[in-house]
């Protein structure tokens, strides 16, 4: 299974189910890949997988490079966890079997994650509250819908979030389900901030520091919120946890910030708009994940548990 | 009916078993017609039957102590007095007990007060009761003109010297008067109070009793004490404006820990959530995002499954269960709508009017709903069109006070007069009967007496009326013959060798003659008839005539 097939498969997944997160799509793709993979040795097998994940990360198919890569990372970790010494060298097929089986359970579980999150976040959306949302996030959308079904009355302000104007998409989706949503300029964050009760954003990747990498503008929003003592809530499934510890915006890997195409044809990055920025944990109030409600400091704990 | 509740702490020794008497009936018509269907003690206040509030006290006394409640139903009770007599008859009271009305709302910790009371009783046996009062200066929202009182209290030991309603025009010479107190309807009584009630049948209400005790204090040397609540809350839902006031207080949490969001009734506790500005929402309540039907509720009390259609406006009124208000109904101040009434479209209920679903008992004629009030498609009868005097609004209280007085006394004297009239009618008819059938006088007297009791007329009035009747009797008499007998009766009855009376009789006869009530021949015939018997006086009477 070569690069193009992989990417096509990946694309089709996303197309079929636009609600699916890129990370999940990537993981699914990889599962699909290992099914078809014909490596003889474990070593080769691993190499192939890494190759595939590299393809995905460098693809321009979606903006969310971060989540893809975190997904892939998770997958690799998953393999390493899954391969248990005794049956591993015996034959690779057996091992694959195990992997595939587990993979399915995993993907099943993944489906329930957002429901869990929205259940956790629901009480925080109190009746009559006003919420500021940045860009387009599936989790946030789900949570808001849930709140709407619970007959809560709330208003949502959505930043249009240039460059890709994904805010418009968000607003439409909200208004479709009858939630009063108002589109605001990115530059109006500070202006709107004093009206709202709290900020609610998704995340492309949750870093080890407990901070998040997310659509450009999130950092700005968090800073404004901090100044006016408004809580910032982050909604993220646990598969978005990534083993990265950015110290500054500069420190965030370029492959996250810029489209792979740009990186490949060596354009002058100083002239480029980054797609994401990094929000340090000190600006975040709580993270709602399927692992429960976490303070930023709790995130690293979870990651440590996973990767050590 | 009166329910008597006797909490018994089993772990107590015999003598400190604590008893409480809860008078479940209010013996008045303040909430009529709502109280036609359910007794006041069961009316919901903040969605909890009033009785609940009262019964709670059992728990404050001895937390989680087993409480045994015996209800005594006595049909013939017409007043607190009767209830207590009944109790003493059944001899249920063995000890100091708490006397509470079923409509009391309070968060008082009674224990210390009871101790206090007992301590006093140890000192002298004559301590009758300790009444609980709440400090509420005049113009206080919770002050009610009809039950406001002037007390004279000995500040030293808070002993009650004088207890009066300001209604009567007495001048108080006593020092240390208190006008800033309000009766909470709770009092701790010593066991022989029921006997006292039995001894004296004039004690109808507690007020009577207290007054009575205080008046003949010198003789019986029974003492009353009061206890003024400072930090605690207690009040009686004695009428609709009190209902309003107390509900407000409960919502403003004055009765803490009895608050809607707290667990008052121990059924699944904490059913309400507390919001800012004292807003309480039931767990199940969901608020619509947009409210289209412009219904205005202002100080309206609405009970179970009431149906209010669009555009209704309710201002400070009481709406009982299953009432249906159709579109654009306007309910103005102080209206009371009893259960199952339906008010048709675009009706406006005048202030203070009260509606019931069944025709009021007193008039049999109108079995059709008063459509002029409830509208064509409505269903219900007017119980009372004009504003009920007692529960006037609390805010315009001052001018209320004076109006009150005027109203009340003119009211009762005209009541008196008409009862007299009726009595007169009765008596006259009796006499006529008597005259017709020549019943001997004893029976007549008997009858008259019975009539007197029926109409509750004092004896002096009876005499006066009786004579009046006697004299005006002939007006009714058709035939001359009757009048003759009448005269006979008259003389024979009241002129037994009694010159003074004779003079009167002569005068009467003469008068009657003058007025051509008795015709010449009647007198003559009578004169003739008289000849045979009782010569003497007859003669001298005749002379005079």
């Amino acid at each position, binding site marked *: 299974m070569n690069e193009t097939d992989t990417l096509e498969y990946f694309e089709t997944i996303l197309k079929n189910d636009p609600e699916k997160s890129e990370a999940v799509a990537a993981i699914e793709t990889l599962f699909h890949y290992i099914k078809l993979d014909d490596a003889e040795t474990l070593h080769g097998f691993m190499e192939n997988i890494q190759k595939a994940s590299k393809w995905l990360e460098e693809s321009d198919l979606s903006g969310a490079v971060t989540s893809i890569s975190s997904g892939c990372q998770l997958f690799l970790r998953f393999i390493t966890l899954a391969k248990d010494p005794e049956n591993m060298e015996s034959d690779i097929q057996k091992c694959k079997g195990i992997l595939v089986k587990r993979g399915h359970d995993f993907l099943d579980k993944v489906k329930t994650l957002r429901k869990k999150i929205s259940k956790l976040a629901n*009480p925080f959306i109190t009746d009559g509250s006003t919420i500021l949302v940045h860009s387009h996030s599936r989790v946030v959308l789900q949570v808001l819908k849930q709140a709407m079904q619970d007959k809560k009355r709330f208003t949502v302000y959505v930043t249009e979030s240039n460059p890709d104007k994904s805010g418009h998409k968000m607003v439409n989706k909200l208004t479709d389900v009858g939630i009063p949503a108002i589109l605001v300029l990115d530059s109006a964050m500070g202006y709107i901030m004093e009206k709202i009760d709290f900020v609610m954003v998704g995340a492309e990747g949750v870093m080890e520091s407990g901070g998040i990498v997310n659509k450009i503008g999130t950092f700005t929003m968090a800073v404004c919120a901090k100044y006016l003592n408004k809580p910032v809530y982050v909604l993220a499934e646990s598969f978005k946890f990534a083993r990265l510890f950015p110290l500054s915006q500069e420190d965030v890997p370029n492959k996250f910030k810029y489209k792979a195409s740009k990186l490949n044809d060596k354009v002058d990055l100083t002239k480029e708009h980054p797609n994401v920025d990094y929000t340090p944990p000190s600006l975040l109030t709580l993270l709602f994940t399927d692992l429960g409600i976490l303070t930023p400091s709790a995130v690293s704990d979870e990651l440590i548990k996973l990767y050590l | 009916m009166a329910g008597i509740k006797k909490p018994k702490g089993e772990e107590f020794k015999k003598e400190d078993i604590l008893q409480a008497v809860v008078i479940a009936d209010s013996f008045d018509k303040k909430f009529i017609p709502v109280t036609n269907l359910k007794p006041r003690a069961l009316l919901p206040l903040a969605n909890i039957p009033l009785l609940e509030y009262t019964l709670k006290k059992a728990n404050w006394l001895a937390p989680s102590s087993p409480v045994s409640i015996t209800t005594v139903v006595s049909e013939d009770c017409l007043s607190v007095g009767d209830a207590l007599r009944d109790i003493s008859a059944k001899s249920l009271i063995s000890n100091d007990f708490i006397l509470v009305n079923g409509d009391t709302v309070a*968060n008082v910790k009674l224990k210390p007060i009871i101790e206090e009371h007992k301590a006093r009783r140890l000192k002298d046996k004559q301590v009758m009761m300790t009444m609980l009062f709440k400090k509420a200066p005049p113009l206080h929202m919770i002050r009610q003109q009809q039950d406001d009182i002037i007390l004279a209290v000995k500040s030293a030991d808070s002993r009650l010297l004088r207890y009066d309603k300001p209604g009567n025009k007495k001048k108080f010479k006593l020092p240390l008067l208190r006008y800033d107190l309000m009766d909470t309807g709770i009092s701790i009584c010593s066991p022989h109070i029921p006997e006292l009630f039995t001894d004296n049948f004039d004690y109808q209400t507690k007020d009577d009793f207290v007054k009575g005790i205080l008046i003949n204090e010198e003789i019986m040397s029974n003492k009353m004490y009061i206890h003024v609540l400072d930090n605690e809350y207690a009040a009686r839902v004695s009428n609709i404006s009190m209902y309003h006031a107390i509900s407000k207080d409960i919502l403003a949490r004055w009765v803490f820990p009895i608050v809607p969001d707290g667990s008052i009734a121990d059924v699944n506790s904490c059913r309400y959530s507390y919001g800012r500005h004292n807003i309480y929402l039931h767990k199940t309540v969901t608020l619509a995002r947009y409210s289209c039907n412009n219904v205005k509720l202002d100080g309206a009390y609405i009970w179970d499954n009431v149906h209010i259609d669009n555009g209704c406006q309710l201002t400070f009124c009481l709406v009982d269960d299953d009432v249906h208000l159709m579109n654009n109904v306007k309910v103005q101040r102080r209206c009371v709508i009893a259960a199952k009434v339906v008010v048709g479209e675009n009706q406006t209920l005048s202030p203070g009017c009260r509606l019931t679903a069944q025709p009021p008992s007193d008039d049999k004629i109108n079995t059709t709903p008063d459509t002029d009030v409830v509208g064509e498609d409505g269903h219900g009868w007017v119980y009372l069109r004009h504003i009920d005097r007692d529960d006037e609004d609390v805010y315009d209280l001052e001018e209320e006070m004076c109006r009150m007085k005027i109203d009340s006394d003119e009211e009762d004297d005209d009541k008196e007069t008409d009862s007299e009239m009726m009595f007169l009618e009765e008596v006259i008819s009796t006499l006529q009967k008597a005259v017709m059938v020549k019943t001997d006088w004893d029976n007549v007297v008997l009858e008259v007496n019975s009539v007197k009791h029926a109409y509750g007329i004092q004896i002096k009035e009876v005499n006066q009326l009786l004579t009046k009747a006697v004299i005006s009797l002939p007006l009714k008499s058709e035939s001359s013959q009757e009048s003759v007998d009448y005269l006979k009766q008259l003389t024979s009855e009241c002129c037994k060798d009694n010159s003074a009376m004779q003079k009167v009789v002569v005068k009467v006869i003469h008068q009657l003659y003058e007025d051509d009530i008795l015709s010449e021949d009647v007198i003559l015939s009578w004169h003739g008839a008289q000849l045979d018997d009782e010569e003497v006086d007859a003669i001298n009477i005749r002379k005079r005539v």
Partner: protein
Amino acid sequence: MWLRNGQMETIDIQIKDPIVRNKVDGLIEDLKHGNILGSYQLAKNTVEVLLHMISKEELANVKKLISVIREQGQRLMSAQPSETVVGNMVYRVLKIIRDECRAIDETAEEQSQESIQKSSTAPGDDVSNKDILSLKKLLLAEGDVDISDKSISSLKAPIIDAVNELLVELDTSQENISAQALEHIHSNEVIMTAGQSHTVEAFFKKAAKKRTFKVIVVECAPFYQGQKMATNLASAGINTTLITDSAVFAMMARVNKVIIGTHTVMANGGLKAINGCHAIALAAKYHSVPLVVCAPMYKLSPKYLCSCDQVAFNKFASPEDVMSFSEGEILSKAQIYNPIFDYVPPELVTLYIFNIGGNAPSYVYRLLSELYDTEDQEL
């Protein structure tokens, strides 16, 4: 897990033993009328009742036991929602039960997954093993350890022991905290405290044995626990100054440490403390004075604060204390509030002193995961 909850309803959760039932109902009554004062007593009583339940109730299996405790715990909590301690204790006991079961499991079966788990986690850190909802669990797609069918007989003894240990912990917590006093109070310090907290009182008295320092007590109107605190401290010979609530900011300039007790420690490291503490915390922050909170572990609640108006977060007493009812007509025109608690966000808290030692607010989540089982929180 949702499945598990689903099953809950089907199981009947009535208490059979009459004595136990009485105990529970009695506790509920007491809660409702606030007869039990002090969260320590509350915690103690709750645990004792639960202990009774465990020992007396004859139940088929653990699942039944858990469901019963959950159900009764639910009743207890709803009796006085603002008393979080009760809930905490219920969760603790549940956690204990689950742990005991798992302990047995682990000894019983040696699966490959388990071994992986062992190898992949820091040795000795047994909590992470039992943390059901870890990312790895998700990844390895492990089912939760099924404890439903364990027979109670084998477990009863260890569970009861564990609960007794919990009781011991409750008893000793105060000493443990005050034992750390000398690490936090050096001589000639000026320390501000608010309201009355037995823990803090003990803390000061302990320190006063060795060091001399000034204590400034905020009186905390309208309940004035502060005044009581002040008299207590003064009678213990500590140089005490009482100030009004309004003087906190002015005074803070001279204070070099604020040590307060609290009613509850929220899951995010925030405080639910006596009314007025937020102002104190802010003032401390403004003058960058460290705010130290003495809290026994049983005050640690797994609940988050969703919003300050959250149901059952705060409690509102009668306005009587603020303005007397006999004030008359203005009462009917003006609203008077008398909240009891105050929320202090975690960023204002410098340090927690638990009976297990000092911790930063950011570490609270960790303690939570050790104390409580995530599975129990969706009650």
